[in-house]
Each structure stands twice: as C-alpha cells, then as structure tokens.
C-alpha cells in the first residue's frame, strides 16, 4: 500500500515537471516529447489507481497517435515558437 502511494507520488511529480517543461519549451518538437513523457508518468499512475482500461487506451493514444499528429502539424508550420 505504502509502495503504491510512493510510486504514485513519484510518477505524478515527474508528470508535473514534464508538463512545466512542455509549457515553457520554445522548441515545439521538444515540447511534444516532454508532453509524451508526462503521458508515460500518467499511464503508470492510472495503472497504480487500478484503471487498466484507461492504461490500454492512454498509452497508444498519448505516446503514439497524439505526438505523431502534433509532429505532422509542426512540420506544416514553424518548429520554434517566437517570443
């Protein structure tokens, strides 16, 4: 039980850091990668919270499909966000 709480806390803190980096990152490709890392941490959290159905859909969507779609869109615009 304590191990579950500990892993949950670690994964959510990792997700928080990744989210913050994704928001402040000016290079959009790197921002997408940070966002995917955040999703991996969320996947672990969903598994620990006993939601395997969400894990199965969250992993392919947020690590595969969504970064790919965003990368396709970035290719159609500029790679670096202007300040």
């Amino acid at each position, binding site marked *: 039980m304590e191990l579950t709480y500990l892993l949950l806390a670690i994964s959510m803190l990792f997700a928080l850091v990744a989210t913050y980096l994704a928001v402040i990152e000016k290079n959009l490709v790197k921002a997408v990668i940070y966002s995917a890392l955040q999703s991996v941490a969320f996947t672990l959290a969903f598994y620990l919270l*006993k939601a395997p159905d969400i894990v199965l*859909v969250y992993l*392919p969507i947020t690590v*595969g499909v969504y970064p790919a*779609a965003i990368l*396709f*869109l970035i290719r159609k615009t500029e790679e670096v966000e202007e300040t």
Partner: protein
Amino acid sequence: MRKDVVVAICLAIVVVVISYVVTLGGGLGPLFNDVRPLATVYLSTTLNTFNPTFTVMSPEAVTAIVWDYRGLDTLFETAVFYLAIIGSVAVYRGIDEKLRVSEGFGLSKIVKVVTKLLIPMNIAVAASIALHGHLTPGGGFQAGAAMAVIPMLLIVVFSRYFLLDIRLSRNLALVLRSVGLLGIALTVFIPVVIGLVNGLNAYIMQNQAKANALVSLPAYVGDSLISGSLIMYNVSEFLAVTFGFSIVFILLSIEEGLVKEQMRGEGVEH
C-alpha cells in the same frame, strides 16, 4: 531566473495541498480501501447467472458499462469520432495522393527491419485486446488505438508511399471504417429483429434478457463466453477506430506543397 524559483515554489505548494486534500484531508478518502456502493451494483450484476433477467454475462465490468449499461452514450461517442474524421476527409477532398515508388524514402534499414519485427506483435496485441475485450481490460477503442500505431509507424519509417504500395489508400480505409460502423449499427437492431420474428418485446441495443423483454443474444458459443453483443461491438469498433485514425494519418502525411499546388490549380479552372 527568480521567476522560475517562484513558479517552482508555487507548484510545490499546489502539489502538497492537493495531495493532502485528496488523501489525508478526507476529500476522497483513502484510496483502495473499499468498493463504493455504486461499484457494488455493477459488480454484482455484470456476471450473475443466478439473475438471468438482470445481467450482462461479461466479467469485465468496464466493457459491460461502456456497451451495455450506457451503450447509447458510447454509440454517440462513436458518432462524434465519425464526424471528426468526415470533417478531415472533407477538408482534403479532391486532393490526390501522387503515386510514387517507395524505394529510397524513409529511415535507415535498421529501423525498417525492427519495425517489420514489431508489426506482427502489435497486431497480436491489438487483436487480443479487441477479441478479449469482454473478458479482460480493453475493448474496441483500446484495440483500435493500439492498431492505429501501425499505419503511423509505416508512414514515419517507410514513408507514406509505402502505404500506397501495399494498397492501403484513403478510400480503402474509408470503406473498412464504414464496415465497422455498419457492424455497430446492425448489432444495435439485431435484438429488435429477433423480437419481431418471435413476437417478443425487445429494446434497441439490448444484450441479455430483461424482465419485460425476454430477447437474449447468445452469451456462449460452445464453451466460450462471448457476452452476446459485446464482442460484436468490440470488433466493429476496433475496425472503425483503426481505419479512422489511418485516414487521418494518410491525410496529414500528404505534403503541404502538393496540397497547395492542387488547390491553386483548382482555383484557376473555376
């Protein structure tokens, strides 16, 4: 630099306060300790052979809820997904994917070989998620999302001309996706048709018999539990989602220059 420190402290405070409220402060109560009353209702009816007029005959409560208890909700979710895909197809209407040979495009040979090894495994995983969706965690959408990674990998690793070489064009994907949606639509009306033929009362999207509507779809084939309509919905949704995402990837991967060129050409004609 000082702004970063302020942001970090604010985030730390937010994390600590939310964790405290959610766990120890009594917000949601401690996790994992008991099953809530609402969950008890679902868990005691989802596979209950002693109560044949109020059960789904599926041990997987989540899939049972998604396609039986609140099936109409999922039906309209699928409709929303359908409309989103149709929107992207409409934006790219009339844009022709020029045929070329896939030789010389894509990433290095090492990546291509690894991808070729991964694809059969991915298909096996996706198929097991779809076909066991009524027994173990998973279901049609999950399996479709896992399967949709394959066309994406093929486009990134082998280039989009490879998809045209193996004849997975936008139109074929549209047809297969429509087959999936048609499967869902037909499954919705199967109990009504059975009811009409046998002169029994039946509801649309009904799965197992209810007290005032004794129409049941078969829960077993041989000794295998198939949970009536759940396996049909899962397989149909699997097709619809897989090829829905495939269409989006095929459209997104068309080069921007090619699209603009064709649109400009069209503008001159009219």
